[in-house]
């Protein structure tokens, strides 16, 4: 079963997303900040990470940089999301695989997930 790590400090959003992904047949994990996510990622090595941009402790960009720097996650796809426009974020870091502007439709996310890691 493909594994997905959902990282968002707004835990309610992360939990809802995880439930939807579970219903779609994925194994989903949740984390509320980048640091917690990194610990979990090292444990489960997810196929895909859906990560929010602004979070306490370690933000989405810092987490993405850590993942990209670690060979263990060479096959892990990263979907970054934020309420801010992508242009503002891409200036800082462009090592993610896709960007979703919040609020997004779940179909858009599921399409990306399927494209990146299949079912």
């Amino acid at each position, binding site marked *: 079963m493909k594994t997905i790590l959902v990282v968002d400090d*707004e*835990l309610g959003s992360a939990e809802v997303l995880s439930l939807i992904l579970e219903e779609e047949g994925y194994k989903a994990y949740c984390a509320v900040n980048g640091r917690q996510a990194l610990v979990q990622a090292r444990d489960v090595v997810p196929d895909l990470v859906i990560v929010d941009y602004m979070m306490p402790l370690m933000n989405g960009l810092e987490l993405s940089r850590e993942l990209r720097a670690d060979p263990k996650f060479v096959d892990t796809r990263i979907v970054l999301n934020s*309420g801010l426009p992508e242009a503002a974020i891409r200036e800082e870091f462009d090592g993610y695989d896709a960007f979703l502007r919040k609020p997004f439709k779940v179909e858009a996310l599921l399409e990306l997930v399927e494209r990146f890691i299949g079912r």
Partner: protein
Amino acid sequence: MTSSTSDNLPTIERLHSAVPGFDQILGGGLFRTGVYIIQGLPGCGKTILANQICYGHVAEGGSAIYVTLLAESHSRMIQHLSTLSFFDVKAFPDRLAYISAFHDLETEGLKGLMSVLRREMRARKVGVLVLDGLVAASEGATDLDLKKFIHELQSIAVLQDCTVLLLTSGNIHRMAAEHTMVDGLVELEDKLFEARSERSIQVRKFRGAGPLRGKHSMRIDNDGITVFPRIESLYCIAAGDITTSETAVTSGIPSLDALLAIKGVPASSATVVIGSTGTGKTTLGLHFLHASTPEEPGLHLGFFEGRDRLRSKARSMSMALEPLEASGAVELMWQSPGEATVDEIAERLLAAVSRRGVRRLVIDGLSGFLESTVYPERIARFFSCLVNELRNRGVTVLMTLETRDVVSSVISMPWGVSGLVDNLFFLRFVHDEGHVERLLTIIKMRDSDYQAGLRRLRIDSQGMHIAGTYRADGDIIPSAQPVSSPEGPAPSPSK
């Protein structure tokens, strides 16, 4: 965070909010490193106020963080804020960030929440921290827990040189434990007055300085929040403290000036022209305005007749305003009555006076102010403070006021107008031998003499002029449109 000399105690610096009028009601702004509660029911503008302060701080080179508990989602908040002019996407994420601390609060309580706040303040070196959702933080906590939380927050705020805003929709009429601890309490309200709602802001508590007390009106538009301090709290010069001038300012009507001992009204005085509809109040105001020059600029504030109609009316009496507008001698301001608060109108008016160094001001339709207030009991004091401030700035003011029915020689003076007026002219109709005549009576001139009696008034293509003394005993025609006082019937929508 503080400044000091060897001789003085350190003084705490202020945080400039970038919210127009907000710092003014605080006597200079929030104190840096203070912990403040911003309280009000949902929809009253807490989120916008806090964000505007954050963005203002970021614009000055600082950094800020907005921490939510159980509040609007960050993406939604950003969507809403992005329509406001102060929103700056470049501030993210280094100088401004939105984070949620609800998970920490839920799992570890106030201790967990404090840990996040402490960590974020230090890591990001923020000058402003907003905690949105104090109600969520206080649920399940005892009063003592909450007091300890705020006490700790105050200590960290000082150490980190950070000003903290706690947003809560808690009951504004209940004295809560946290109110006793914080450095200040600002309350926002959006109150309904029949079909009209009016936003207000009140500083209920402010340690270390004397804020402008009472409720001040507030507007939210694409530029965010603007606060309009109550005129009475800003300007309270007694009329007796204003230096009166012996210099005459022409009324713009030579035959009227001829009735006045100094051949005009005293400079920096306030004149009210009172009369029923159609008696010529606006025309007299136009004459006064038309005497403006680039050296002595004039301003016309009208509530009922729009600029084009006013220009057309002036043109029909050989007083074209367009050349005066082009030369900078005259500016026409129009204000829809009831669409702005009296303090907002007064601020616009005073700003326009300062901007052009206005010396002649016509306020056509004082009742427009009455229609713009939801607190009619304020109006007499409001006028008094506004007019005295204008006089203090060297402005000679002429105001028109529509009377109630005039069925006798007794003049009804609504809203305590007599207290603010130096000079009073009364216009009325009489029915005389099959003709309707306009009459002018000079009722009062402060500190200068005048010719009393009834004067015939003519209005023709050359404007208004005095056409001799009236001696007949005609019938006084009642006005068609009565005008209210606060105690009277509803104000007329037209002049």
